[in-house]
């Protein structure tokens, strides 16, 4: 879950209201009174034991804000490691490890709060050692540590057992309205209360409500309910509308603006366009379209390398306006857009790997070799053995292979696997019955 959303990436020069109106103290946090009180108590008691805490809950409801506000209230210094940093084991050890072992420039009694944002997302960003490094830092820490996560159970058990969990819940829409009113007042925007109500009901969380308010209200003196209707954040379903705008529309501005309303980051969005362009464009247009898209991809690469999210803007322009401009022929008819097949393929590859690994474990156990050895050296032999049906049944029974595993070794998806599985299971049953008959008397 990335925090730099598409909308904001396009307007790098203005101050985000989410940042400008970020609560400075815990008492300014909207909602989640119980969690905030727990967090405060954790901080006040910190030192008796040096347990870390995990703040978890859906995005955009003030977990990170609460951590910063807490540090401010307690007079603690803050360092944050978020997902845009490279969180390899070495870097975690170096930065978080040093920060956790050291006092501040005020001496050993100085406190520093270490915030590890998106702690449920460490596998995705770094090598697996990353989690171990964090566990190690938490075990040895002499400074308070806050982990922030969306999904509590996406974190390893070890990590969970070391931290005190504090749950943040979604904020009710009516608690958000007073905050939006205050922002409007401070920004000098007149508003109809209905307008704010619409924003709040359409937004999924506090952060997106503020972002939407900014997108709609900035530059206006007065905000009425009608303004909100055109500017509202589209939900997932309408990515199809944006695609229609790009592939069939004729106004580049419309296409670009339509993409602003998506809550999809450009890294994912580009796959949607990539997937669907060939359904829409032919010949020369297709080549030119991909030319634009590849330029967008170059920008995405630069964003990743340089961590300069301002460049997302150019990627966005290339993949919307650029792709639209590549079309020379009149659009025709209805096109059924599809979600990116790449994702499906990646997902499938993952499940195939899982099956392969579980076979390797079973073989390894039976043959007294490591899973790795079984995977690299023995599975090919087993595939050969499986060419003979009798052999396949015998092995399947001995190793108690599942249907998926049998299908993997047979390299098929047809009913062959089913038959072998049934025969193998029958054989296992017979063997058991035989064992019961033989040894039943003892």
């Amino acid at each position, binding site marked *: 879950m990335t925090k730099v959303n598409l909308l904001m990436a396009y307007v790098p020069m203005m101050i985000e209201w989410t940042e400008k109106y970020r609560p400075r103290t815990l008492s300014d946090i909207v909602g989640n009174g119980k969690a905030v009180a727990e967090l405060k108590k954790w901080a006040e008691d910190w030192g008796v034991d040096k347990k870390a805490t995990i703040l978890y809950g859906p995005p955009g409801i003030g977990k990170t804000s609460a951590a910063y506000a807490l540090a401010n209230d307690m007079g603690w210094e803050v360092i944050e490691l978020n997902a845009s940093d490279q969180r390899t084991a070495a870097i975690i050890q170096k*930065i978080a490890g*040093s920060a956790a072992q050291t006092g501040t420039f005020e*001496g050993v009694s100085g406190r520093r709060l270490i915030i590890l944002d998106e702690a449920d997302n460490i596998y995705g960003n770094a090598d697996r050692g990353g989690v171990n490094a964090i566990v190690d830092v938490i075990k040895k820490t002499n400074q308070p540590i806050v982990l922030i996560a969306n999904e509590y159970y996406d974190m390893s058990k070890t990590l969970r057992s070391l931290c005190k969990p504090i749950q943040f819940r979604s904020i009710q829409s009516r608690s958000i309205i007073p905050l939006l009113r205050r922002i409007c007042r401070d920004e000098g925007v007149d508003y109809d209360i209905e307008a704010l109500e619409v924003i709040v009901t359409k937004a999924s969380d506090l952060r997106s409500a503020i972002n939407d308010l900014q997108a709609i209200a900035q530059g206006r003196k007065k905000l009425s309910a009608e303004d909100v209707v055109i500017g509202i954040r589209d939900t997932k379903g309408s990515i199809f509308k944006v695609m229609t705008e790009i592939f069939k529309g004729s106004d580049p501005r419309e296409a670009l603006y339509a993409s602003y309303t998506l809550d999809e980051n450009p890294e994912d969005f580009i796959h949607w366009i990539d997937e669907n362009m060939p359904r829409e464009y032919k010949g020369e247009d297709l080549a030119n379209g991909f030319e634009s898209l590849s330029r967008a991809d170059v920008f995405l690469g630069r964003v990743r390398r340089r961590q300069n999210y301002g460049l997302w803007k150019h990627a966005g322009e290339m993949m919307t306006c650029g792709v639209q401009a590549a079309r020379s022929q009149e659009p025709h008819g209805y096109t059924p857009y599809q979600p990116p097949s790449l994702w499906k393929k990646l997902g499938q590859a993952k499940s195939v790997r899982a099956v392969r690994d579980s076979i390797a474990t079973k073989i390894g156990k039976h043959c007294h070799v490591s899973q790795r050895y079984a995977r690299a050296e023995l599975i090919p032999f087993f595939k050969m053995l499986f060419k003979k049906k009798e052999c396949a049944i015998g092995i399947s029974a001995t190793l108690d292979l599942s249907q998926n595993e049998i299908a993997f070794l047979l390299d098929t998806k047809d009913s062959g696997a089913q038959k072998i599985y049934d025969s193998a299971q029958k054989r296992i049953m017979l063997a058991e019955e035989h064992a019961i008959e033989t040894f039943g008397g003892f």
Partner: protein
Amino acid sequence: MVFRAVIDADVLKNSIEAISTLVDEATFKLSPGGISLKAVDPANVAMVSFELTSDAFDSYESTEGEIGLDLLKLVDVLGMADRSDNVGLELNETTHKLTITMRGLSYTLSLLDPSSIRKEPKVPSLDLPARVTLNGNELRRAVKAAEKVSDHMALGVDGDVFFMEAKGDTDQVRLELAKDELIHLEASGPARSLFSLDYLSDMSKALGKVNEITVCLGKDYPIKIDFMMADGKGKVGYLLAPRIESE
């Protein structure tokens, strides 16, 4: 904003290396009087401050301003210069680049946006009771010895003795320097603090080259290490937060 200067390669290299040992990127303040910087490492544990007056340069012309630099790249580029070379620096404000020239070579280095670099740290005023002046190489030697047994070491002053000690799981190291082996020592009370060797080791790379460094210490307080470079026209200061002793 104008910045145009020529400087001895060796001076520039030593200056940048003294900074880049702690931070990868930093914002330099430019002014007619010279350049300066304050930067903190990513863990907020160590700080470096740096000043180089305009007379350290062969020629110097600058208005007020600031530029963000990728120090690792800069060190890399300066690696191409010979010790005796002169290095030319010129800022192109419109393209947002710094041109570095040396004996016919010309590099154009993209500047970093200062707003993307960690902010200058808040530094509390510190009243450190002990102050020791010694050869930088002595401290470097102590750090090297300590690294053989542990990942942290204590530095302190006890009476007229400046001491450094490190205890590992099985072994320990202690180095003592009496007042007459030091350039200067004054202390209004005992001082002893623990420091992470990772950082001391990084700092001592620059310290080892210096004949005279001043070390200020307190009890469980940060260590402050200052030294001059470029014949007194440059000043480098390190501040390192103390390590918390685990019970």
